[in-house]
């Protein structure tokens, strides 16, 4: 310190060089630069700047309510009752909603949804989740003690990855993830300093998973890291494929043989549309394969309130079920989750309603089923529509959207466009998507944000806009693609 008390000029304590180096590698395309530009354009439109379109269509993120999907009435009623229990005296609310609310409130400290819950999650909710899983999986028992409520599925996924990441250099944990993948995985792997091991889904076969490809990627990875985890997203994001039962069995067999911890991301489990496709939970298949597998394979499956027919992303509700976890590790997991205190109580309450929805005979049942069916059938219709329209565009090829909420079509880009993109230092599909945004107001995420085979280009769009808007959007996309192709030929 100099004589007059002033500090000598120095650099900052926290700079890009001194900060955690792993943070630099974190990328999350779903909310990346293209979305930032979209937000900017929205501002400009508000300010009256003239554009060739009147609104930005944000088909980049799996946010159903943002696109006009209505919440399920029953769920919102119960949560409102939990929040402001005076409403329990209001005869505008159905009795079954009130009963659910009372039950939830009874398990909350001070009967308030504002109290901390235990870090693993409200007891009665975990019990209800276990019952749901048991029912869903044809009676295979589920232990509430293996259920952890989480702040969205993302929280659970990152927590398990954290638990599994260890070692240095050649013994550093390797995490197998599909290409294409949901970029939470790549971002978390980068943040944790684990090693990402890519296995390619087969685009020609409707994005199916080949065991030979898993084998290939594992074998190559063993040269430079210690592969310990295999992540599967089923139904898939961004690809929408729904794995067949046979495929799931093969994956389980593979994980058992190669001693891999299975992470099954099943947040889209109700979003299955294609004929002949069915959701099979990894847990169910595992247990139906007999004790040779069910007593050995370590599995964590994830679910959330953000997708399916609920679309309640903002609640940050989710759970994970851990199977065959070493008890000492599980104790560490329990300790780990305690650090962030507890997941949001309203999200936990909502999860309870999802797994414990109105039953036949209950006052809210009919409305509930009507709403649920409307959402899921609209999605199925839009999935088909998207596939159909996109496949009429020369240069765009779209696999059937079997499930989830997205389509991930392949686009053929003219050589000149690819070169111009590269000259700009931009991924060619980012270049394409940026132009699409500027010219038509449609915001999509380039395939490079999810991963794809070298030399191929894609984009991910959600099927969430209302049907009419979706049709308009798809047709605009068609126009744009044809124009773009012509322009750069």
């Amino acid at each position, binding site marked *: 310190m100099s004589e007059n008390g*002033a*500090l000598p000029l*120095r650099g*900052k*304590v*926290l*700079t*890009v060089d001194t*900060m*955690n*180096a792993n*943070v*630099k590698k*974190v*990328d*999350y395309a*779903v*909310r*990346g630069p293209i979305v930032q530009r979209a937000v900017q354009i929205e501002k400009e439109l508000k300010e009256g700047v003239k554009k060739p379109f009147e609104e930005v269509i944000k088909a980049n*993120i799996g*946010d159903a*309510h*943002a*696109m006009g*999907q209505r*919440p399920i009435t029953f769920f*919102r*009623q119960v*949560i*409102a*009752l939990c*929040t*402001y229990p005076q409403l329990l005296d209001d005869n*505008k609310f159905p009795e079954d909603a009130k009963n659910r609310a009372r039950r939830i409130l009874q398990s*909350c400290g*001070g009967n*308030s949804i*504002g*109290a*901390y819950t235990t870090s693993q999650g409200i007891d009665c909710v975990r019990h209800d989740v276990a019952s749901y899983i048991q029912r869903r999986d044809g009676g295979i028992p589920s232990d509430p003690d293996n259920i952890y409520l989480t*702040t*969205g599925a*993302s929280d659970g996924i990152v927590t398990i990855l954290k638990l599994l990441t260890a070692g240095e250099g050649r013994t550093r944990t390797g995490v197998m993830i599909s290409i294409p993948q949901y*970029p939470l995985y790549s971002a978390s792997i980068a*943040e944790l300093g684990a090693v990402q091991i890519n296995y390619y889904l087969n685009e020609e076969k409707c994005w199916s998973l080949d065991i030979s490809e898993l084998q290939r990627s594992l074998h190559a990875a063993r040269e430079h890291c210690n592969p310990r985890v295999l992540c599967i997203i089923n139904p898939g994001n961004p690809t929408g494929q729904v794995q067949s039962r046979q495929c799931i069995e093969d994956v389980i067999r593979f994980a058992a043989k190669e001693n891999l911890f299975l992470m099954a991301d099943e947040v889209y489990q109700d979003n299955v549309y294609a004929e002949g496709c069915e959701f099979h939970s990894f847990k169910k298949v595992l247990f139906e394969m007999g004790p040779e597998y069910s007593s050995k394979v370590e599995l964590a499956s994830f679910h959330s309130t953000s997708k399916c027919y609920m*679309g309640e*992303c*903002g*609640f*940050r509700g989710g759970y994970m079920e851990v199977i065959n976890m070493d008890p000492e590790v599980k104790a560490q997991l329990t*300790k780990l989750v*305690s*650090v*962030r*205190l*507890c997941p*949001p*109580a*309203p*999200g936990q309450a909502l999860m309870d309603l999802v797994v414990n929805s109105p039953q036949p005979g209950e006052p809210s049942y009919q409305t509930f089923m009507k709403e649920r069916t409307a959402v899921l059938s609209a999605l199925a219709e839009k999935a088909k529509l998207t596939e159909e329209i996109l496949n009429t565009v020369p240069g765009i090829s779209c696999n059937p959207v079997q499930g989830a909420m997205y389509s991930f079509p392949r686009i053929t880009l003219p050589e000149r466009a690819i070169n111009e993109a590269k000259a700009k230092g931009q991924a060619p599909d980012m270049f394409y998507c940026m132009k699409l945004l500027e010219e038509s107001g449609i915001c999509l995420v380039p395939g490079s944000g999810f991963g794809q085979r070298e030399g191929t280009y894609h984009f991910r769009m959600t099927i969430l806009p209302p049907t009419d808007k979706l049709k308009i959007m798809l047709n605009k996309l068609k126009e744009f693609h044809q124009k773009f192709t012509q322009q750069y030929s």
Partner: protein
Amino acid sequence: MSFLKEISPLDERRNYNEVLDLSSGDLHRGGIKPITFVRQVLAACFYPALLEDDSLPLDVKQRAESLLRECDGGSIGSYTDSSGITKIKHCVSQFITRRDGGVPSSPDNIFIKSGSQTALMIMLKLLIHSKDSCQTGVLIPVPTYASFTLAVEEQGAAIIPYHLCEEQGWMLQVEELRKALHTGRKTCNPVALYICNPGNPTGHIQSRKSIEEVIRFAAEERLFILADEVYQSCVYGDDTEFYSYKKVLSEMGSTISSTVEMASFNSVSKGFMGECGLRGGYMELVNLDPAVKQYASRLFSTRSCPPVVGQIALDLMADPPKPGDPSYPTFSEEVQAIKNTICKNTGRIQEVFAELPGISCQPLKAGFFVFPCLHFSLKAIKWAKKRQMEPDMLYCLCLLEETGLHVRPGCEYGQRKDSHHIRLFVATQENIMEDALQRLKTFHTRFMKEFS
């Protein structure tokens, strides 16, 4: 019943009907009711059909409507911006400016997270190089609450403890900071200084002068300040005032105020809101390198967004009903009632402790807890040693078994060697506090007698 036997088995007859849980800083669990205005707005946001209800006051409806307008699709089920809804960040920055007597606050420096704990963890993640050959060090007060210590360890940082001075009301002394830093530098690379003001579990509150000294210290020694101020609205001591680190920093001359890097934290879990389960918190970043801020934003985006209900609760905390608003009378009554309860409780605590041998307490100024010192005899310490347990842990276990009163032992927070404490939550209903104090009094008197 003698203590000098094994801890009573579960099926033994108990002389209490229910457990009194004063172990965690949870207002609602302690029997305090949520603020009506807050719950009405939240309910209307969850279920907008309520906006047509005659029973809800006008200002509730207006607030709910204006907040829903900020949500995509008019639904709180939509994702928001990763750092929080823009309008709410504006509201928070205005709150900060008002609190700090006009010191400007930019919404661009406000990051809303799922509780202040999550925000703290993200800052730690940015600051800590878990792979470096030289471990990153973080200065942490002793005592401090356990989850934070765990968070630092989880990130792979070295903990550099600095002791608060119990005899001086748990004062933070810069000399102690200096000593701790000097020691820490031998084994790690200290980069951050964590302060909890008002303190948990100690309830101490820093004077303006103390804050200035700490800031100057951080400036000299090039430390990033993490100022955990979640108890800022729980101040009840006479002649006691909360000064925010930001305000003091801003008044220390441009060299310091434009260079010292800091993150301050606040939350809806404490104060009059007590909405721990909603997970609403924010951090304000001061003088952060813009390039780092960009990376931080990207990191936040992978967590998608903070729970919308927590964000709304923050808005209500930052911009509560004002005189003239229909909800104001009820609101101010409820807030005052909570303040009165805490004041009465702290008064009673000091009265009861004054009568008891072997327990002493620093003056209670702020926060949600009291952290009295237990003076164990050698006999008691030997007994605990025989059971391979910390004396205050064993004391708490016996207290729970014998009387049903649940409090936490000082060993969980850190304390000077051979000193023992317990931590009690003070913001509970008055009758619960009285019951708790009676149970404690009975148990403690017997315990002290038995081990004299």
